[in-house]
């Protein structure tokens, strides 16, 4: 702007009282003159600082004596010293429709890629580095808590059945990398019916009802092989890692909307975590099929016991399946049958070796 006289119309604030004075700021040969209803003020243009551009809002020029001049945004203001260089670059990006559209595409790609591949892979590697012992305190405590509450009661199975199943469980798990952590517990539980759980730290709990529902030991072992899959594949740790990452990401994405409506932030995180949980179940199923093959048993046992479980509870696929933490049972049975026909049909990412 050297050589030209440039005039901005705006307002002047002295910094001591919240009064607005109409004013003009005129630049002539690098000197700025502020004209208002008081004494005219003179400054070197190089001593002024212009506030960052944001939207089309008015900008503020800081004057060396503590005063401020407010005026509409104009390209000419970019020739003056800027208060913040980095924000100028961001403001440049914010002005462009093309950048906004590219951002939408990039965010969609980052989120779906991170969700489908990045986060699960990262969680698998991180979980492998975290020692199993980290989970054990949590697992022991949970079991004590469940035993103290009404959830679990001592098992009513006879000693011979228990010893036989313990021996076969040991045979099933003895060659696995996490063999030292496995412990099988029997419990009676009215609330949860026929079920089995992999607790954090390697303890597997099977309910009396589950043992009774199975018609052969092979069926019990098929269920236990699935739970072994959860432990061997570190699903507890991965679930915690992935769940936390999803929660943090959802909070970041919906940060602005969080105060507007709480339901909007919660729901996507719940859906995303439910999908991860279903993936873990499928992964544990695949692991179980392989483990059964390795010990000369057929995944058919898994299919029959799941079928009996389904017919007993009368569960049918419903409108809320997308919220479920487990895949649809009929799908799991179909996969088990396919694996029984063809040992190589399972997911190759999962390996028992």
């Amino acid at each position, binding site marked *: 702007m050297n050589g030209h006289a440039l005039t901005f119309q705006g307002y002047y604030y002295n910094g001591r009282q919240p009064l607005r004075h109409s004013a003009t700021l005129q630049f002539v040969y690098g000197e700025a003159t502020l004209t208002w209803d008081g004494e005219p003020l003179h400054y070197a243009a190089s001593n002024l600082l212009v506030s960052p551009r944001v939207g089309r809002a008015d900008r503020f020029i800081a004057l060396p004596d503590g005063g401020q001049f407010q005026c509409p945004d104009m390209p000419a203001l970019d020739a003056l010293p800027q208060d913040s260089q980095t924000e100028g670059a961001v403001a440049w990006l914010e002005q462009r429709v093309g950048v906004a559209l590219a951002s939408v595409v990039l965010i969609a790609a980052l989120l779906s890629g991170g969700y489908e591949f990045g986060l699960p892979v990262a969680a698998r590697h991180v979980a492998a580095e975290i020692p199993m012992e980290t989970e054990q305190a949590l697992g022991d405590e949970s079991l004590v808590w469940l035993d103290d509450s009404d959830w679990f009661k001592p098992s009513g199975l006879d000693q011979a059945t228990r010893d036989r199943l313990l021996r076969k469980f040991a045979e099933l798990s003895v060659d696995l990398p996490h063999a030292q952590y496995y412990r099988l517990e029997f419990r009676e539980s009215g609330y949860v019916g026929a079920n089995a759980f992999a607790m954090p730290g390697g303890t597997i709990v099977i309910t009396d009802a589950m043992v009774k529902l199975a018609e052969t030991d092979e069926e019990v072992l098929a269920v236990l092989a699935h739970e072994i899959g959860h432990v061997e594949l570190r699903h507890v740790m991965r679930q915690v890692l992935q769940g936390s990452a999803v929660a943090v990401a959802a909070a970041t994405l919906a940060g*602005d909307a969080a105060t507007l409506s709480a339901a909007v932030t919660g729901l996507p995180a719940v859906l995303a975590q439910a999908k991860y949980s279903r993936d873990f179940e499928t992964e544990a199923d695949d692991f179980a099929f392989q483990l059964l093959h390795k010990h000369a048993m057929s995944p058919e046992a898994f299919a029959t016991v799941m079928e009996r479980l389904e017919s007993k509870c009368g569960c049918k696929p419903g409108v809320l399946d997308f919220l479920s933490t487990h895949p649809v049972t009929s799908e799991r049975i179909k996969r088990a049958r396919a694996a029984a026909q063809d040992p190589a049909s399972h997911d190759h990412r999962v390996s028992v070796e």
Partner: protein
Amino acid sequence: MTEPDASPPVMPADEGLQPQEMLLEFRGSVREYFRIWIVNLCLTLLTLGVFSAWAKVRKKRYFYSSITIDKTPFQYLAEPLPILKGRIIAVVLFAVYWFSSSFYLPALPWVLGAGMIIAPWVLSRSAAFNARYSAFRNMTFQFRGNYLGAAQTIYWLGLVPLLVVGTMFQWWGNFQAAGFAFLAFYFAFPWWLSRLKDFMVRYTAYGGARGRYSARGGQFFRVYFVAGLIVIGGGIVASLVMFKLIPDAMGSQWSVLLASVPAYLGYMLAYAYIQANVSNLVWNHTQLGPLGFRSTLTGGGMAKLYVTNALGILASLGLLIPWAVMRTLQYRADNMRVLVEGDLAALNGGSVSAVQAAGAELGEMFDLDLSL
């Protein structure tokens, strides 16, 4: 000296006391804010969250500069680095909490206890940070509340400590104790909230004038009591739907889904009712020097806004978040009036309150923003 007094007659007193309204306008646009929001979100994701401090500054600058009173926009002056520092500390604290709550529950009460000790510090520091970097007409706000004041406010009657100590010794295992604690908390909360608002207003200063606050806890209680009735009403309708109106043939999942609609609407309406009326209470009982405020939000208006926001955001997979933010600010601005009683020149902060004085304090060691 027989001449009559030549000076002009004194103005009638009531002329000076008549409150004058200062025009409050909201000039934000969805198009502009969409671009700001999406670009900053993209950069935040690309930098794995590091940029979020810059994003916060950009968004707050836009909100502030979109609100004008008598033609002057507000200014947000914070630098991203202190915000980044605060966020790193917050992430570390959260990680400690996350680890103990996920894997090591015995440590959780002690983590909560430590959180209780630093909470007043977080509250007073972030309020001070926010005030110092907010300016209107080249004058920054100040917040002078300290650790002790904040602790006295949030630990009033020892309610919160009671809850934490209760967690430490697992009183919550006892059903009756937990029920009693919940009831005591529900009934004491409105008074607690009023004290908190009082603390925030009373220690906020602008141009040498400190805030004055005159709302009473009982007024807050009335708001929360009505909100409680709304939630109960929604619950009654929901259970009617679930057990009486839906034929069994439709299946249990459908009845749960349909019953959740009145329950959700009841919750939403209660939430909106609280938001609107607590805002009104605080603003209408706050005076800052010659400045007074009139807030006229309604629970119904807020609820309509929240429900349409939620539907719009879900249907657009989040792309309408900027639209929701802008129309909420617009609604709040439309229902706010700023009144001046007397002379604005009475506000005189001296040279310390000028915007550049805030920057001079940047070197301060604990200049960080802990509010997320």
